């Protein structure tokens, strides 16, 4: 990820605002603090892995960033703009995207239709009462995205008939619709076979350099191969940040997460 790091360094050096900036973000569910005082800065083009055990608050963090949950305290800035109070669709229209831990797809529709819906969602055609023409630019974009995630052969297949791995790939295609500026990937490798994981790494490393992302991933091999920096979470707090190599060798991290289980 050395080249990608250079890109995020270069983008930051030009004075571009941080892609994502969380300051003092907390999320309470009654007495339970799912997130506590999170400070997180991700530069434009940066690829960050967020790691942590179940219940560490990783998905809650994503939900706060996308607006599925409003944080109890703190501010969230996206490319310099305070989006803390924005509804989810306004954040998406500003170039933020996400995938879900459990695939949320329209299973009755074809692969291409799912991606087409995603392309329409971030276009001005959302309220169009006119069906797309054969040469519609959004249909062409959807076809390109289907190609990017290697689903050309399944283009007209109903999503319900896709394999689990293909559904994860489709989630990624939908997140790429409409030139995103930043993507949140929530465990994209979960449940994938080794071959599908390799394909996923290939897709993620093939994304344009300016497109930054945060990836939540339990598979350290995948996470460390697609991220240039790592944030470790535990009990709703950030307790370590650094380069993948530093994190891998950190004794505290090893004791907590890598120790016996990670070979």
């Amino acid at each position, binding site marked *: 990820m050395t080249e990608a790091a250079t890109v995020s360094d270069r983008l930051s050096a030009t004075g571009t605002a941080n892609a994502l900036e969380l300051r003092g973000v907390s999320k309470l569910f009654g007495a339970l603090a799912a997130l506590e005082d999170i400070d997180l800065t991700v530069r434009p083009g940066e690829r960050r892995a967020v790691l942590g055990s179940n219940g560490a608050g990783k998905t809650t963090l994503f939900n706060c960033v*996308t607006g599925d949950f409003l944080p109890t305290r703190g501010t969230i800035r996206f490319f310099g703009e305070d989006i803390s109070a924005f509804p*989810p669709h306004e954040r998406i229209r500003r170039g933020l995207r996400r995938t879900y831990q459990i695939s949320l797809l329209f299973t009755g529709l*074809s692969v291409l239709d799912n991606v087409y819906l*995603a392309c329409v969602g*971030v276009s001005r055609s*959302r309220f169009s*009462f*006119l069906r797309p023409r054969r040469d519609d630019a959004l249909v062409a974009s959807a076809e390109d995205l289907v190609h990017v995630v290697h689903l050309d052969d399944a283009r007209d297949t109903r999503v319900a008939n896709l394999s689990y791995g293909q559904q994860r790939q489709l989630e990624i295609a939908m997140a790429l619709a409409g030139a995103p500026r930043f993507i949140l990937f929530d465990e994209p490798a979960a449940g994938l076979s080794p071959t599908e994981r390799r394909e996923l790494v290939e897709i993620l490393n093939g994304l344009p350099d300016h497109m930054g992302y945060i990836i939540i991933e339990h598979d350290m091999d995948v996470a460390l191969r697609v991220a240039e920096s790592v944030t470790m979470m535990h009990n709703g707090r950030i307790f370590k940040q650094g380069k993948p190599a530093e994190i891998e060798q950190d004794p505290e991290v090893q004791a907590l997460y890598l120790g016996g289980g990670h070979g």
Partner: protein
Amino acid sequence: MAVTERDPARDARPLSWIERIPGRYWLIGAALLVMPVFASDFVLFQIFGWTFILGIIALSLMFLGGYGGMVSLAQMTVAGLAGYMVAIFGESAISAISLNWPWYIAIPLALAIAVLFGTLTGWLAVRTDGIYTIMITLAIAAAFFYFVRQNYVMFNGFSGFNGVLPPDLFGVDWRGPKAFYYLTLFWAVICYLAVLYISRAPFGLALQGVRDNQRRMSALGYNATAHRVAAYAFAAVLAGIGGILLTWQSAQVSPGTAGIGPAIDVLVIAVIGGMRHPVGAFIGAFVYVILKTFALDALVAVGLAGERFQLLIGLGFLVIVFWSPDGILGLWDRWRESRGKDPLLDRGGEGP
């Protein structure tokens, strides 16, 4: 799903819109067009005219319920309001209230007010889900009924308006059985095709997406609330057209036109026909009109009180909902599926 689906064989030569219409549509279309040749005036005006009108109003509910997952009991209220507005802005026998404006102002204005009302109803109703949507729209329907019944200055209270007739356009008496049949058929076809077309346009697809998974649609950039309100606005156009035609058919509009009973009848029609496809609204309307028209005679013939015809409608509703929650369309689909089954293996005949 046909929006982005492409058959490679078709890419070579795109089919014209005429070629894409299935044969059965041509057959039904031809039968409906020549109907006045062999059908009586009663059948044309009372059976088919009424079927098409109720079908259009039920179609507005089908659009909201089938594609948007929102069951509104206020569609007959929107229809009734459009009827009232035509009577108020246009001509009626109540000359003290009616403004006698020309039809080209009165009709668009009536529709616009109905759409505004439908949109406001939607704006209130989309904040709720399921049973609460039904309750809030029922409350709006009830409030409208009691308001127009008690308001004599504008709505002429209990009596409403009579003598509300279609405009005398092209020298045709549009309330004549044949002309009225073609008028209602024309608008039924327009509304049906509009719903069919929009269901596969970005707006319709997004509405179905919101119905299936609102959270996911928000994560794709859609404003789910705005989509739902817009769906109410479009449904109000349909209901408004139906309401104006209904007022012309009976030449009158009164609180009873948009009472609680008719509001629920629209739901019954939509459910009997099936909410999965726009044609269900017209199938349901046809069954309802037949029952409502002939049940009385049937009951009297077997020695029962004629006024109990609503019992037959209720029983029919019960049977259909019990056997097929998808209405008559669902029954039809099941019958077609059972025909394709291997009776020995109890599975589809095609493939293993």
